[in-house]
């Protein structure tokens, strides 16, 4: 479908060129953070708390410092006091004081794995041995692992200074209360023929990127520091590290290495300031790389949650009321994505009467970070299950039921403002018309489920530079770390606008000194916002090129036209000139040509997706096999369709893992037990079918090319879709994730007992 704001006839956009960074990545040449080494480099390791909740009475590093090969050890004493305030960073809001407390525990450890000290030594093995020699004296406190425990009267308090507006000066574990309401709830439920109410619980899960966090810090005697790391946001690493270290932003340069996955988890900092501190103390470059256990214990997973949903519908299938209570585990410090979850939970539907109350609760778990559509997947699991039940009660096909209530342009969002043009209906139609949904699912213990999902997508700030070289080829420089092929899209946009071959445009992700401020690669914003900056930068270059052509032809710029990479002089029959012909003349006509643009992007286009899943359940073990899966998602405009499909398939796979087996498993002491890929069970190749995709292109009117952004919403529907499929397979409503064999078997046996009992009673 053509984007209304474009001609729709693209030469490069919509094709599938080989990504520019591809060869380096299939030959092992691409340099990720852990691949950097420097002469005289030392290796760092981090000492972590074995307790979930404890006061630190003393830390003794003397023995460790005496170990041959150990060069320096840092603790929170080496960190300046950071400011207690809120700042926007990507999709999360951060408080520098809490960030500092997370990087090295101050008086208290707040979760199993909380960093306490960092060692720099001549080898990683020696650094590790040194950790065993650091003596920490703890006063162990009772762990607070769940929302229920944290909100109980008299619950142990994690953060003595934490207050919320409603409880005034009372100590609390509840950091924040959000509320959204509209219409008349009582009247809404009165008008309902069917009302369904359920409580849902979801387990904390991790992004599961394969590359552990890493950082190489180099602090020079002149007070200038450089950090090499794999991050989704070099500029955020710079500003956050500056705050934690008490350094001027301008004194830190962050070089974004290739990044081995992030999904939101690499939008904050952990090792980066430690590498600089250790480098400062030793005068040598210091590299730190987390182990997988450290990644799971001490990076930023996403919230486990408790969600209560009560929804009502009329018998003809109109949603009339929704009452929702939701509480998310923030981890050790405030800032779960519960606010976003609340704004997403009924976003796909028009509901005249609703009230949503959402609570951000601190618990003795790692501080949560963003994870692909943060907060939305938990929320959709609850609401999309209820929707499925209401559809069944009304005897309406689940897709038709959703179509009856689906939001379209002009409908009010949960937060109030109306939607601009959106593609939810097209994703529902996309599934409805898919070979998958049209196929018949046969066989025992098999079921098909569908669910829809919403994500805002983000705008924020991006900068881009387009350099035209003396032979008419070009480079496009941005500040957006490329996490899934975005460099190819930036080159394609540049090539499209300047009439170049995509292979003649080299896309570069620059460091923080070499390009204007660019916010994180997150919020599905890169192709949208950075793409907008690239579009403007290319336009800026085009304007300059036209001036040069005009100059050569001794005409006015408005007498020169630029089409498909050629310049045409109006009027007299001067033969057209290509960029390649013009480029050698740059020096004589005024010098090199550099197109520039910086944007704080407006016109964000929200994303919707609908997913259909077929499952088969083993009735004797509760094991679920995904047989078939199709996702329809609105991309706005798909710049590189292969990588759009890739985002849809990847998010779906993460959603399926979340649904079936992934969970943080803590023992009663608050110690994480499954801190490896053996027992944190992400889907393997053998657990998934091919993932069929339907790319919907409902152009975003807020973007010159119609782009929305596709990185996140694909993860939102699968958990609910699996739950709905399981219900159709075995008649059991799962209200807890993961829907793992022990949980599902238990539910099935209970269900069988009940049905047998009722049968006996008849």
């Amino acid at each position: 479908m053509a984007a209304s704001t474009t001609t729709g006839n693209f030469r490069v956009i919509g094709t599938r060129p080989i990504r520019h960074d591809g060869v380096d990545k299939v030959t092992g040449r691409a340099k990720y953070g852990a691949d950097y080494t420097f002469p005289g480099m030392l290796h760092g390791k981090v000492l972590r708390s074995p307790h979930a909740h404890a006061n630190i009475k003393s830390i003794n590093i003397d023995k460790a410092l005496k170990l041959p090969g150990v060069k320096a050890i840092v603790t929170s004493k080496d960190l300046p006091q950071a400011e207690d305030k809120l700042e926007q960073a990507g999709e999360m809001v951060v408080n520098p004081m809490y960030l500092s407390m997370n990087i090295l525990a101050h008086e208290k450890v707040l979760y199993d794995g909380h960093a306490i000290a960092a060692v720099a030594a001549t080898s990683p093995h020696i650094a590790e041995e040194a950790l065993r020699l650091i003596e920490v004296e703890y006063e162990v406190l009772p762990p607070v692992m769940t929302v229920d425990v944290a909100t109980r009267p008299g619950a142990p308090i994690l953060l003595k200074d934490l207050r919320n507006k409603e409880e005034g000066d009372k100590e609390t574990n509840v950091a924040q209360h959000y509320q959204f309401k509209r219409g008349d709830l009582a009247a809404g439920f009165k008008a309902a023929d069917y009302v369904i109410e359920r409580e849902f619980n979801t387990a904390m899960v991790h992004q599961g990127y394969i590359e552990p966090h890493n950082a190489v810090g180099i602090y020079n005697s002149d007070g200038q520091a450089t950090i090499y790391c794999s991050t989704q946001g070099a500029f955020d690493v710079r500003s956050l590290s500056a705050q934690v270290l008490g350094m001027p932003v301008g004194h830190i340069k962050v070089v974004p290495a290739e990044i081995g996955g992030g999904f939101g988890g690499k939008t904050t900092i952990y090792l980066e300031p430690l590498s600089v501190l250790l480098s400062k103390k030793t005068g040598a470059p210091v590299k730190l790389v987390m182990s997988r256990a450290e990644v799971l214990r001490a990076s930023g997973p996403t919230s486990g949650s408790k969600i209560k949903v009560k929804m009502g519908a009329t018998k003809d299938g109109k949603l009339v009321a929704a009452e929702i209570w939701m509480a998310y585990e923030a981890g050790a410090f405030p800032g779960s994505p519960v606010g976003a979850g609340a704004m997403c939970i009924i976003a796909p539907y028009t509901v005249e009467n609703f009230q949503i109350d959402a609570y951000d609760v601190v618990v003795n778990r790692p501080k949560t970070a963003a994870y692909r559509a943060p907060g939305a997947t938990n929320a959709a699991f609850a609401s999309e299950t209820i929707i499925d039940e209401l559809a069944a009660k009304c005897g309406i096909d689940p897709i038709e039921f959703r179509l009856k209530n689906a939001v379209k342009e002009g409908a009010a969002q949960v937060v109030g403002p109306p939607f601009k043009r959106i593609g939810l209906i097209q994703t529902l139609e996309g599934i409805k018309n898919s070979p998958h949904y049209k196929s018949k699912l046969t066989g025992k213990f098999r079921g098909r489920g569908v669910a829809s999902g919403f994500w805002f997508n983000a705008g924020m700030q991006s900068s881009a530079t387009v350099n035209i070289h003396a032979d008419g080829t070009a480079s496009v420089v941005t500040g957006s770390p490329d996490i899934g092929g975005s460099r190819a899209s930036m080159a394609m946009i540049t090539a499209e606008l300047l009439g170049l071959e995509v292979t003649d445009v080299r896309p570069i992700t620059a460091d923080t000194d070499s390009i204007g401020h660019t916010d994180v690669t997150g919020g599905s914003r890169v192709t949208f916002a950075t793409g907008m900056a690239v579009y403007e930068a290319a336009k800026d270059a085009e304007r300059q090129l036209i001036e040069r052509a005009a100059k050569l032809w001794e005409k006015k710029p408005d007498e020169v036209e630029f089409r498909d990479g050629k310049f045409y002089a109006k009027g007299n029959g001067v033969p057209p000139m290509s960029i390649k012909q013009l480029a050698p003349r740059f020096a004589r006509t005024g010098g090199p040509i550099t197109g520039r643009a910086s944007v704080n992007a407006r016109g964000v286009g929200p994303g919707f997706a609908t997913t259909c899943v077929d499952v088969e359940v083993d009735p004797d073990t509760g094991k679920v096999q995904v047989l078939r899966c199709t996702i329809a998602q609105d991309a706005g405009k798909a710049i590189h369709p292969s990588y759009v499909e890739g985002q849809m398939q990847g998010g779906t796979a993460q959603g399926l893992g979340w649904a079936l087996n992934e969970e943080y498993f803590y023992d009663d002491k608050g110690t994480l037990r499954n801190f490896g890929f053996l027992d944190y069970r992400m889907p393997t190749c053998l657990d998934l079918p091919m993932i069929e995709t339907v790319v919907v292109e409902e152009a975003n009117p807020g973007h010159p090319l119609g782009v929305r952004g596709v990185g996140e919403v694909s993860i939102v529907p699968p958990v609910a879709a699996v739950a709905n499929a399981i219900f159709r397979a075995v008649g059991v409503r799962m209200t807890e994730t993961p829907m793992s064999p022990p949980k599902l078997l238990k539910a099935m046996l209970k269900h069988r007992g009940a049905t047998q009992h009722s049968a006996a009673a008849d």
Partner: protein
Amino acid sequence: MPTVVIPALLRKFTGGLERVDVPGKSIRELIRHLGDRFPGIDQQLLEDGDIRPSIAVSIDGEIATGGVLDAVSENSEVHFIPALGGGEV
């Protein structure tokens, strides 16, 4: 006159009023007039003279980026909503 839609938890300042018409050509002026009419509500929205980082402003259905500096027109509809991962309203 521009209309400001008051977030649920701030309606205690407006005596439950959800939609309020206030004069002003910019977000700054709107908030100032809101504060005059409903003392205290402006403090909930502002920090160091600008919109709190955890709050986003929507003008006529679009997330604005200029904080208090953004202009509004006579019949604009303005919403204060939580920023992604933010809150406080």
